[in-house]
């Protein structure tokens, strides 16, 4: 399935990238999405990104909710006029026939307070299941997207469940020799859920959060937006872990989110600052 998507999007002019080697809550955090959504230069890329959402852990008990799963990300900047048609073609490519399955574009405005980003779009439903998040980025890191990028985020496990016709994610066939998704990941889900919810050392996590935050600021001082952004990703994930451990109160939550947002925004700002002269020279209408 991943190979089919790679072929498809590569033919549409996308660079095929590899996953970013950090823990993150969504493919959108990948610098190839977040940072590259900034600025006027065209950017088309596709990649798989493993995602971790500690609070979504269900100890392996839920048929489709996981604390660790895979997203397939496509970013197309500027958003091409045929983006919906291309997307539907990509579904056909991986074996989803929209005359057999009910495909729907249901309003879902996307907002990431921690990235200072928002966009309008849909969650794409396949027979009632959200299989893709489809977003036209309007702002990133607090900056207007000029031009707007279209982002497609496929939920790979969910799509695979449709294609294979299984009810439970752990029953997915990982290969043709009888290895299931559960064989690979079920124990991982159990142990990680236990760690996320019950075990993780919260003092150490609070400490890590502070350190990532300080490191990010150090990088920003040194004019290094990319390593700064990595620390923002790190802080965001640590925050998610603290949430799962239930040690952040409602009031504190807003404050932590604001801190993460400031780190992400600061990184985007530094990134913009670093390239804006170059962009303005090459794209006068961007600077206008």
């Amino acid at each position: 399935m991943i190979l089919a998507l790679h072929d498809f999007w590569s033919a549409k002019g996308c660079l095929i990238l590899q996953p970013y080697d950090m823990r993150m809550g969504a493919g959108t955090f990948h610098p190839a999405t977040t940072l590259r959504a900034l600025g006027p230069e065209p950017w088309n890329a596709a990649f798989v990104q493993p995602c971790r959402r500690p609070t979504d852990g269900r100890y392996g008990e839920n048929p489709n909710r996981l604390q660790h799963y895979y997203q397939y990300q496509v970013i197309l900047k500027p958003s091409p006029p045929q983006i919906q048609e291309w997307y539907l073609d990509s579904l056909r490519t991986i074996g989803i026939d929209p005359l057999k399955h009910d495909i729907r574009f249901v309003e879902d405005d996307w907002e990431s307070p921690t990235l200072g980003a928002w966009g309008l779009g849909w969650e794409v439903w396949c027979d009632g299941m959200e299989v893709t998040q489809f977003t036209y980025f309007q702002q990133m890191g607090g900056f207007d997207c000029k031009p707007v990028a279209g982002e497609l985020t496929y939920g790979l496990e969910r799509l695979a469940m449709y294609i294979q016709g299984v009810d439970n994610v752990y029953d997915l066939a990982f290969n043709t020799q009888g290895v299931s998704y559960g064989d690979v990941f079920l124990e991982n889900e159990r142990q990680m859920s236990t760690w996320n919810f019950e075990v993780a050392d919260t003092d150490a996590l609070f400490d890590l959060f502070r350190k990532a935050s300080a490191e990010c600021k150090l990088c920003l001082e040194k004019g290094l937006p990319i390593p700064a952004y990595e620390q923002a990703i790190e802080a965001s994930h640590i925050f998610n872990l603290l949430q799962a451990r239930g040690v952040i109160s409602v009031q504190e939550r807003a404050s932590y989110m604001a801190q993460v947002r400031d780190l992400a925004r600061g990184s985007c700002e530094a990134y913009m600052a670093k390239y804006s002269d170059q962009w303005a020279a090459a794209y006068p209408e961007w600077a206008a």
Partner: protein
Amino acid sequence: MTDFLLELRSEEIPARMQAGARADLERLFREQMKAAGVEHGAITVWSTPRRLALIAKAMPQQTEAVSEEAKGPPEGAPDQAIDGFCKKNGVTRDQLEVRDVKGRATYFAVKNIPGRDVKDVLAEAIPAIVRAFPWPKSMRWGEASISTESLRWVRPLSGIVAILGEELVGCEVGGVASGYATLGHRFHHSGEITIGGADDYAEKLRACHVIVDHEERQDMVRAQAQDAASAAGLELVADEGLVIENAGLTEWPVPLLGRFDESYLDVPPEVIQLTARTNQKYFVCNDANGALANAFVCTANIAAEDPAVIVDGNRKVLAARLSDARFFWEVDQKTTLAEHAKKLERITFHEKLGTVADKVQRVAKLARWLAEEGVVPGADADMTEMAALLCKADLVTEMVGEFPELQGLMGGYYARAEGLPDAVSDAIRDHYKPVGQGDDVPTAPVTVGVSLADKLDTLRSFFAIDEKPTGSKDPFALRRAALAVIRLVTANNLRMAVADGDLLDFFADRLKVQQKEAGVRHDLIDAVFALGGEDDLVRLLARVKALQSFMDSEDGSNLLAGYKRAANILKKEGYEGTDRIARTGEEDPLALVDDPDVGSIVAERGKSVSYDREPAEQALVDALAQAEPAANAAIAGEDFGAAMAALATLRAPIDAFFDDVTVNDADPAKRSARLALLANFVAAVHKVADFSRIEG
């Protein structure tokens, strides 16, 4: 006369925005046509997820030619004035006409504005409508979005069809040019469809699996969902919001019934319905006994060869959702509500009012007091306090975190599951009630106690920190809370002083609004409120009710006429006493003997006067002597009907008095005594209500 068709195609428009968009499209079109002087016939607007359409009947081909003329200066006026007139009207001097105005030759500027092709008017109007469209949220897209000035639309605008009669209205906006071509159903029809005009638009689309009329789609969803349920021996739980939403999500709606695993019915039915509705937009069904069945109805957007595939997919999604709900249901029950309630210490209620835990403590204290003092008859103090202490605990449960609208309800379920008394569980479940106008008002004593305490605490607390509603701003929903208190108090006949000061005035305002909506005459409410100082809403409303039925009677309307006549005479004669009596609102205004004006009334009140009273005058004096104490006694006993009846006895004497007695007698003693008598009459009537506020 020809019909005009406009279709604005876009990527999927959110269902919830479509009704507003239809109204906006019609309004903007009317505005544009009006401004251009284009008459038109009936307008129809339709929407689907992918298009907004408008058909205007009976459009002219051309607008009427208009001739405008302006009168200028007379011939021989200074050049400066004539040139200025020409400039203002955009004409040259040799184009001016000279006409005779009352014997003076006067310049006229005549401008003939020729009729325009309506096609041209439309070609300008369409881009203007698109640019002015007030979407609740709009976006930029594509290459043009390198500038933030690029066109905004709800989602990318992808096509425009604009046909007047059979002719194309050529226009372009945001890089999208108009044409005859549109698209059919996203999956059932590939390629473009050529539209001939307004006449064949809907039918051509229908042939390509698009029902463009949203109402027709709503009818299909409603009827076919019911049919699907009936066919399975079930009854659909009607939900008009879901009908509209599903019609807004589909161009070719196909409701399909599916089943979910019966074991999920362990989860409370409200949770299942909410999960199905909110997350999946499914209808649910009841079985023959009216209990929730393990069935759902989803609405597909395609006529699939094998609908079972779609149903099965939807079933899996619902199962996963219900599995999650069951997870929350089970996890929440591992902790008692009392334990959950401790976490409320972490939630701020308001920065100046402390945490939710602080609020809960205040509510519990007040609720206990309401029970102990007998304000809420039959409420057990311990149970009321316990329910109050636990009523907010579900706010920190997983289930309410996921579905905030289940607050209260889940607390009730969890309380019952813990084995708490039914009265306590019910109170936790229902303590937010009454929420809206149509909502039931609790009557169970423990519930009433908790609900009342919760709302009174909210009102008192926010008034104490001066956070009162102003104008349209009511961020803490205090108006709703006050209305809920009014309904709780009146429905349950609770005798208490609800408030004082500003808060009492606030209650008075809400009560007026509420009573007006209930059809009580506003002047009667005003007449009772004008007495002032009443903080017992039950007593106040009893008085209003008695007054209303009195005023509906002949005695009432005649007495009012007599009252008005008396008040007018007093006013005309500059008699000060009445106003003071009305204003003070004291039980017995005549006790204020230190007041010189009132003192004179007291002096006149005695039985003896220095002259012989006329019979009608004496009759009124006697009637007052009977009626006033009787009315006072009835008011003290809160028998307002009897108070009105006592006043009714004054009707005949006051009528006779006006017929037979001259107030403005030449004898100052008679005049003064008779004015005082009228003042006494007015004062007696005021014991019941301020009749000067009553209309009629």
